[in-house]
């Protein structure tokens, strides 16, 4: 009964068009369209060909379709350069990962969602969010991903493809709404990752309901939220004491988990440096080659979500029994293994309280 719809989901998760699937299985695009729309029932050969082409087990195709995200608001906020099909593929992949979350979450205690809805300025929104998350008003957020996961946010790591950075959504499931943040994986820019997550959190907090605002306004609010969350004004006024140099900013980078460029920008936004000083520092960044690549020694490690793997470990043991995991989720064990690589293992886990120590390189 659901087979056609499930075939469509399988195809879209793999990023295939109807025509591409038809070519792979040797039929017409029209036949694929009719089957997906439920006008025709596929025969066994067709289903087996779909299994081969999509690498999903047949059991996956016999399951009811998983919930889909509302794509309209994601499209609305997407980068103008991103193609609709790329966005659709990204969203479908995120739904696929979230279906795994949902399958395990049903067997575990529910993590209460502590992401408030705030219709106010980004600064006020951050104030309320920090309070709700149990964060000090002016302290660095050491592991933003971990903090948000503990507040009920589910992270989806997207495959590393161009044009994908991050998106978020409130997913209505049964009688609750679950905040989901999807972020591009395979990256080395931990500072950019944190800024993207902060930006998406801004959307979750401030743009949950429909607002009569332009896309530009909404995006600017989310960036302002991320800046205030990661670099609170109060703390910055205490720490960004002029004259600022690239060296002093580089020292601040690992503790605050943002780029030197973001610190310069923040100092300018808060009028701590003049326009002239801002341009000078930006020019120095270019001259040092830091616009392309900030110094490696002060790189911010890329945060990894933990929740999905942790949930699987609780249900399927540690090490995870992937055969049982696969039987329950109807996804092959090898694909589950690949997916979980993006999620932190227990041994990688570093509690929030552990501090980063900064020193200079010792003599050789």
């Amino acid at each position, binding site marked *: 009964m659901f087979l056609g719809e499930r075939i469509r989901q399988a195809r879209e998760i793999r990023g295939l068009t109807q025509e591409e699937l038809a070519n792979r299985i040797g039929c017409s695009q029209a036949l694929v369209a009719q089957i997906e729309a439920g006008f025709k029932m596929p025969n066994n050969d067709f289903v087996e060909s779909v299994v081969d082409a999509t690498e999903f087990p047949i059991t996956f195709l016999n399951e009811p379709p998983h919930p889909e995200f509302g794509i309209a608001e994601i499209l609305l906020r997407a980068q103008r350069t991103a193609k609709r099909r790329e966005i659709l593929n990204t969203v479908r992949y995120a739904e696929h990962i979230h279906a795994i979350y949902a399958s395990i979450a049903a067997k575990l205690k529910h993590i209460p969602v502590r992401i408030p809805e705030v219709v106010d300025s980004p600064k006020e929104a951050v104030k309320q969010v920090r309070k709700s998350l149990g964060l000090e008003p002016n302290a660095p957020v050491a592991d933003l991903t971990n903090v948000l996961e503990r507040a009920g946010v589910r992270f989806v790591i997207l495959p590393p493809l161009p044009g994908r950075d991050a998106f978020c959504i409130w997913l209505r499931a049964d009688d609750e709404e679950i905040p989901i943040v999807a972020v591009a994986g395979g990256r080395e820019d931990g500072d950019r990752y944190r800024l993207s997550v902060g930006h998406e959190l801004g959307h979750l907090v401030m743009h949950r309901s429909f607002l009569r605002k332009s896309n530009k306004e909404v995006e600017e609010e989310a960036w302002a939220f991320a800046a205030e969350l990661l670099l609170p004004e109060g703390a910055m006024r205490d720490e960004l004491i002029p004259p600022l140099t690239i060296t002093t900013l580089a020292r601040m980078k690992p503790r605050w988990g943002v780029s030197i460029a973001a610190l310069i920008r923040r100092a300018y936004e808060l009028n701590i440096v003049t326009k002239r000083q801002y341009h000078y520092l930006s020019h120095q960044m270019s001259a*040092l080659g830091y616009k392309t690549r900030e110094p490696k020694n002060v790189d911010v490690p890329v945060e990894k979500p*933990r929740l999905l793997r942790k949930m699987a470990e609780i249900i399927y043991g540690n090490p995870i029994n992937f055969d049982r995991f696969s039987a329950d989720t109807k996804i092959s064990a090898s694909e589950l293994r690949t997916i979980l690589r993006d999620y932190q293992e227990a041994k990688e886990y570093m509690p929030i309280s552990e501090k980063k120590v900064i020193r200079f390189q010792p003599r050789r």
Partner: protein
Amino acid sequence: MDHLTLASDPDEVLQAVRPILQPIYEALETSVPKAAQIITEQGWQNNAMLFSHLVRADVKARLHGRKCPIEFDDISREVVMDSICNDGLSTNFEDITLKVFKGVVLPRATSSQRESFYQHTLPGIEPDMETARLRSLVVLWDCDVEGANLKIFLCCPRDKTGIFAWREVVAHPSAWIVVSRTESSARVSDDFDELLQGTDESEGMGE
């Protein structure tokens, strides 16, 4: 510093003098744009002498009495700037004299003091590169008229003509910072346990 000679690897010398190079670099990084800004704000006509004089005066004020970082060799030191006319920048680090000049090449020695500084050994004696102890170093700094594109070199002079034994670009101090993260040992559980546990299926079965 006794082991450093004129033949020492420049990189070894750079590492050895980092505790003094870092405050010098940071002072220049601060004073150069400040000098450019003062000239603009005052509406003065910019010229190399005025610019360089303002930089020297500000660098000298910033450096004198400043603590050197102890991260490199665990030795606590304070920068003491020598009293030189015209706000000349000169200081001592261990038994090495460091002078700070504007430009990308060593200026020719035009005074007996400068000759003696360049010489490392007694005047008139050609130094033996292998054995002559390193006694003098020059920090050269240069930038464009607006104070941008600051470049800093460490230069080892060889004789009074301004010939140098070597000249190396000084890496920006931000590239010297090392971030140590406390390593956490392997854990069998983490702080999600309290949030997720408490179900019938919480007993996992290993692979």
